[in-house]
């Protein structure tokens, strides 16, 4: 049992444990904090799978943007605990902060040092071809961000434009949803 197995076990335990604690927690704020632990651990699993760009996106989009949005809405709605005292909230938020911070420290140490266990992890998977972007019709998996850009702007040109249009539609929809309610309150 080497170091990579220990890393996998740790990340898997934190991801699953965070999810299970999330769906059974009574206070929405502690649920959101357990959710952040789960998301950051999934980013660690992406690092073990050598998808470094997706790990960074996971931390930025899920642990950053989406969970901040959730916490803002919880604050705005002012929803209390479902019949439980909120004294454990400080403990939970401290635990979530320490867990996420230590996961991120471990990940950055793994990525900075070259002779790290990540090179051990790469022996678990088929060897990577780092030089070519395409192999016949297929896009080749690589750790570089360049291959993502190449794939998105050649094979997936139409889907990425549809995704941009979807984000625009979501933005317009959210603005209209919020505006309508304000107008009804004024009348």
């Amino acid at each position, binding site marked *: 049992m080497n170091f990579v197995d220990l890393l996998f076990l740790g990340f898997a335990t934190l991801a699953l444990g965070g999810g299970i604690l999330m769906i059974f927690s009574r206070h929405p704020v502690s649920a959101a904090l357990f959710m952040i632990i789960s998301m950051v651990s999934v980013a660690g699993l992406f690092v073990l799978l050598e998808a470094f760009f997706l790990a960074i996106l996971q931390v930025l989009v899920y642990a950053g943007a989406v969970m901040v*949005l959730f916490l803002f809405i919880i604050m705005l709605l002012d929803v209390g605990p479902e019949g439980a005292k909120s004294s454990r909230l400080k403990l939970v938020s401290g635990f979530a902060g320490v867990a996420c911070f230590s996961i991120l420290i471990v990940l950055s140490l793994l990525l900075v040092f070259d002779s790290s266990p990540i090179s051990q992890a790469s022996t678990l998977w088929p060897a990577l071809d780092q030089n070519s972007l395409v192999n016949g019709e297929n*896009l080749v998996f690589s750790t570089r961000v360049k291959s993502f850009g190449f794939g998105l702007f050649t094979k997936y040109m139409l889907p990425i434009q549809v995704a941009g249009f979807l984000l625009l539609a*979501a*933005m317009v929809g959210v603005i209209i949803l919020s505006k309508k309610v304000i107008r009804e309150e004024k009348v």
Partner: protein
Amino acid sequence: MESITPQHFLILAFLLFGVGFLGVVIRRNLLLVLMSLELMLNGVNVALVTFSRTGQNLDGSLFVFFIMTVAAAEVAVGLALLVALYKKRRSIFSEDAGLLQN
């Protein structure tokens, strides 16, 4: 224990999806239902990246990229709907959301 294999990652992805589905089914708080949906999408992402890495094909990773985009849009619209529901009903529980009843 032997070394980790792609099967371990796939089992973990299945369990994450199952936990998220359980949350969607058993919780009545609509905020928690939205969070559990995110957990289900994360489980799918882990499975996609595992297949992408072992099959040496970038398509799976690009699908994860698009899933993240759709999830962000879905959360924005879902939370706006939730705020609108709260302004109408003063509650975010699923049994109070029957706007077409009575």
